[in-house]
């Protein structure tokens, strides 16, 4: 099976920020969640994938083709939903159908109409009259109606209520039933990714600090809760990050089972993606 996305050694520098040697692989038939704090490089990575910005170094392969050499061909197979609705306020869904049917060779007006009905988007209303949830659903309908193989979403579910988010997540799950399909979604809402993603890539200050199958992360990583004195008994290489508070200490453990074998009297619980993000973002190096 071809990987939907392969990124090797991606670098992009700005005055105050640099994406450094990002490696990422998204296998076909799966969903990858790209997480990280604001300014970690998620959008920069997606912009490089879509060639919206010029990278400094690295190689990006999408659906088996170089993203620059085969740009037009590869983009015909990609559906994109960005962080906001980029359709003009004065357009209506039927206008968008007319425009995009002349842009994508594989555009399917009937499919767009199906999604429009499914998402209950009024045909004759202008985009400016839509709520944020409706706008994102419209963007998703437009991204899916040319039957893409790869969906790329940048903070597409941000600011949406749980019901709409759930509807959209269901669409992603339906979309990857075809194992040629894949989804890359950047999001802060880690609970959504825990529900839908197969792989998680965590970007921190422009670097990939974690890229693994979600189940592996959630099964292996753990949160140690202990006192400062107990923390001193733990060898530093057994902890990824630590957080020290006035009421106790916490540590992020890479291998929960192995840690439990070694430190039988210490309590290690399952952890969540959000906690891992907090450890990485706010915790200290375990030195």
């Amino acid at each position, binding site marked *: 099976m071809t990987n939907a996305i392969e990124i090797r050694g991606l670098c992009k520098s700005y005055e105050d920020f640099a994406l450094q040697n990002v490696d990422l692989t998204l296998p076909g038939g799966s969903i990858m969640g790209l997480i990280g704090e604001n300014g970690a490089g998620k959008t920069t990575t997606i912009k490089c994938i879509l060639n919206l910005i010029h990278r400094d170094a690295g190689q990006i392969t999408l659906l088996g083709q170089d993203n620059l050499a085969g740009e037009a061909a590869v983009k015909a197979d990609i559906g994109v939903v960005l962080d906001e609705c980029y359709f003009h306020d004065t*357009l209506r869904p039927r206008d968008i159908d007319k*425009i995009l049917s002349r842009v994508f060779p594989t555009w399917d007006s009937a499919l767009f109409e199906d999604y429009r009905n499914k998402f209950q988007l009024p045909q004759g209303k202008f985009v400016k009259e839509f709520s944020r949830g409706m706008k994102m659903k419209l963007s998703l309908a437009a991204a899916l109606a040319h039957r893409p193989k790869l969906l790329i979403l940048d903070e597409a579910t941000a600011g949406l209520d749980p019901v709409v988010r759930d509807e959209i997540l269901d669409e992603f799950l339906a979309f990857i039933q075809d194992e040629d399909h894949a989804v890359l979604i950047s999001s802060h809402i880690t609970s959504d990714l825990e529900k839908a993603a197969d792989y998680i890539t965590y970007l921190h200050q422009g670097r990939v600090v974690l890229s693994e199958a979600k189940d592996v992360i959630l099964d292996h990583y753990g949160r140690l809760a202990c006192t400062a004195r107990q923390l001193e008994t733990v060898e530093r290489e057994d902890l990824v990050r630590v957080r020290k508070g006035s009421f106790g200490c916490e540590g992020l453990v890479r291998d929960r089972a192995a840690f439990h074998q070694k430190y039988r009297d210490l309590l290690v619980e399952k952890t969540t993606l959000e906690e891992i993000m907090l450890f990485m973002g706010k915790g200290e190096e375990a030195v």
Partner: protein
Amino acid sequence: MIGLVLKDMLVMRKTIRTYAMFLAFYLVMTVLGLFTISFTTAILQLIVMLLPMSAFSFDEMAKWDRYALTFPLGRRALVTGRYLFALVMTVVAALCGLLSCVLVSIFDSSDLMLENMMTVMVCLSLGLFYADILLPLCYKLGPERARPYFYLIIFGPIVLLFGAYQLGFFGADSLSFLSSIPDRPAVTLSFFLPIVPLAGMGLSYLIACRIVENKEF
């Protein structure tokens, strides 16, 4: 690319409709003899020149370019679509000007049709010339920062000429030499004049493509 031109038309259908009403009004006034063809065609070209500027503003507001670059079209198509839109609008304005020439010649006994058509062709040339300059500027600076240049290019020469006249650099009869130019070369020149800015549009297009190629979205 056709989709991008269609998008411009659909986004600005309300504006185009309003301008069409203006156009109809000016046409009627011209046919009734209240406005001259020169005035009407100049106004038409001026109005039409605002359309690509508005298209840039609407796109900037919606951040459309970033989205459009995710299409399987490429950066060049983005520029081609906008140039095509500007060209279509400028030519439509010129055709309306020519239509008013024909209508005026039907209702007006004075034989000014050829002269009026020359005016239309000169206005068309100016419209294309403005597009040549303004489109790359809009890509480079964005529509808001390019707007002052738009007014400078349109009204600058008028202010300069008026200022020079007021300061006595030339008198009222300074342009009388124009009357001495024989009709035939003058007509031929005016009819072939649009070819110059049309060729310039090629260069302008290449510059705009270069700007967009280097731009980050």
